């Protein structure tokens, strides 16, 4: 009796496991039914401490998809986002991707997290599915991937910009680097070290890392002052960058401090007050959207705030632009994945914040800025990548 009861169950489970395990090895999945909705896969962190690198993107992408559907979709077919949570884990990300692939998406959007993108990339390459994600980790676009596009700036652009600003604009030569001890943090550290050396023959006077869960970062800040740093750069996540800023103020450290693009996010999310951040700097791929004067950006900021209650950060704006780019591409070449890939690779796209144009590595965005926080919640762009 027991055997009869369990055998079909076991067989089903084995079949399911085999299906999951082999999902990455399948040939290109058959495309969706020609009359059903067009599916776009999205695998980003919706929960966990890394949610700020996922949820805002989905919100922005939904705006783009809703607008496209309201204007008739793609040749009468509606668009649908198939969203799965990658949490803060590569394993979860792969499982989420496998689940998304079952919906036969025309393309997949990934998180702004280098480690997860690197884990997902081989599966999407094997399945020949266009893959768009915006981590700044340099080596993500050095994998010879044929279907991957980065819709944001990478660290070689970001870190060259803040290094030039520190040395050329501020005249600082004793740079201290603080970073979170994960792939994102090390990428920021290594690129800063590289540009300090390559451009000016300098070495950082102090380097300190911390764990993503660390809350008391005063020891690292004190190490910077002890080593004589005359400027501090930080590459971390929203929580720790906000805490670094607060603790720099509390310790009365007066040297210039530049946060990564994450500090811009922390500011826009209200994790630091305008009073706390006056006199500090953050860098990013472009000016923060709420400060962008372009009418189309203002319209996006208003729509995003109305929908979510928050101001959009620059990375969410990149995902909004990239979704519109994909929609425009499908309107032009249809839903064939290779044609979509070729079109994105060969044609520039004019987004709401500027032009996206693929280079030989698949990088679409080629700008970075350093912004200074002024009194009364104002900001000023003090350095651009190309000056």
């Amino acid at each position, binding site marked *: 009796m027991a055997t009869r009861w369990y055998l079909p169950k076991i067989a089903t489970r084995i079949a399911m496991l085999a299906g999951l395990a082999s999902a990455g090895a399948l040939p290109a999945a058959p495309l969706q039914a020609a009359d059903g909705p067009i599916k776009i896969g999205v695998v980003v*962190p*919706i*929960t*966990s*401490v890394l*949610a*700020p690198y996922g*949820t805002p993107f989905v919100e922005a992408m939904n705006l783009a998809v809703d607008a496209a559907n309201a204007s008739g979709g793609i040749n009468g077919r509606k668009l649908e986002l198939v969203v799965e949570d990658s949490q803060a884990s590569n394993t979860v990300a792969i499982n989420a991707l496998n689940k998304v692939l079952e919906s036969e998406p025309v393309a997949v959007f990934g998180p702004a997290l280098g480690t997860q993108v690197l884990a997902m990339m081989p599966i999407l390459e094997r399945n020949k599915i266009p893959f768009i994600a915006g981590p700044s980790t340099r080596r993500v676009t050095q994998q010879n991937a044929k279907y991957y596009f980065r819709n944001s700036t990478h660290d070689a652009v970001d870190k060259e910009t803040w290094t030039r600003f520190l040395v050329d604009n501020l005249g600082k030569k004793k740079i201290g680097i603080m970073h979170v*001890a994960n792939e994102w943090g090390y990428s920021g550290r290594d690129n800063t070290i590289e540009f300090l050396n390559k451009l000016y023959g300098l070495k950082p006077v102090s*380097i*300190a*890392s*911390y*764990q993503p*869960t*660390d*809350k*008391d970062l*005063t*020891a*690292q800040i*004190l*190490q910077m002052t*002890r080593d004589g740093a005359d400027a501090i750069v930080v590459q971390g996540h*929203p*929580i720790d960058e*906000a*805490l670094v800023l607060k603790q720099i*103020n*509390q*310790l*009365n450290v007066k040297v210039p401090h530049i946060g990564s693009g994450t500090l811009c996010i922390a500011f826009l*999310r*209200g*994790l*630091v007050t305008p009073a706390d951040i006056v006199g500090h700097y953050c860098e990013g791929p472009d000016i923060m959207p709420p400060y962008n004067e372009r009418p189309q950006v203002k319209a996006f900021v208003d729509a995003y705030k109305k929908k979510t209650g928050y101001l959009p950060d620059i990375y969410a704006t990149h995902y909004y632009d990239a979704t519109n780019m994909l929609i425009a591409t499908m309107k032009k070449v249809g839903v064939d994945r290779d044609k979509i890939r070729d079109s994105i690779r060969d044609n520039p796209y004019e987004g709401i914040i500027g032009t996206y144009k693929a280079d030989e590595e698949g990088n679409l965005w080629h700008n970075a800025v350093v912004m200074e926080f002024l009194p009364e919640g104002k900001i000023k762009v003090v350095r651009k990548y190309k000056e």
Partner: protein
Amino acid sequence: MGCICALVGLGFILIYNATSGLNFAQGELVMLAAFVFYAVISAGLPYLVAALVTIATMAVAGIVFQRLMFYPLRDRSFLAFIIATIGFSIFARNLALLIWGPYPLKVPSFFERDVVSFGTVVLAPEHLFIIAVTIVVLIAQYALFFYTDLGRRLRATAQNAEVAQLMGIRAGRMIAITFMLSTLLAGIAGVLLAPIFLVDTEMGLNLILKAFIAVIIGGFGSVPGAVVGGIIVGLLEILVAVFVSSVYKDAIAFGILILFLIAFPQGIFGERIAERA
């Protein structure tokens, strides 16, 4: 940070002494307290009222926690309670995620000034406040346990619940009060932590890890040990980070702690384990 470790460790040890159970959800109780504090402040209540409401809410939550998590498992192996608390910690994180969302939240500071200077030493007023509150809490806790009838009954229950019951003490009620005191401490820690660190769903994990180490250093089961151990952990971390290496601070600090435990396996106040508070 050492004082916060001490408060979390103290809450941990109170339950251990009363039930022989290890409450690995103590960090998540601090996290929930921080979220409740945020919610109450956001509702517009004055700062001090919000703090009191939070602490009172956590105290009540302690009784509920005891009835749901401990009471049904009271006759089982202590492992059942440990696993239940680990399960609760996962549940609490997801509950916070559902209610307050995945974004970290900011609680305003009670103090207008960012720093207080003593010569060349610069301190945040919140940190001084944490030290002061911890001292007050410890004195109050000592007074409660050693100078009140309730304290005597609590200690009697902690030493031997069955004998205490034979002596006319309602052991079940004493255990419920111990849980209430433990979550009340978590409430205080949450209120103290929320303004200096942002409130997020992961904040409890690190706390319980360090508090657990603090408890081991101090001598498992010892109330003063939990406090001294917490302060040692906090100090060791910061001193290693400043004078040796911030990159390897956790590895070095925990390495030193392992060496310490090899030398003193029972911890600093190990002798008093048998006394149980």
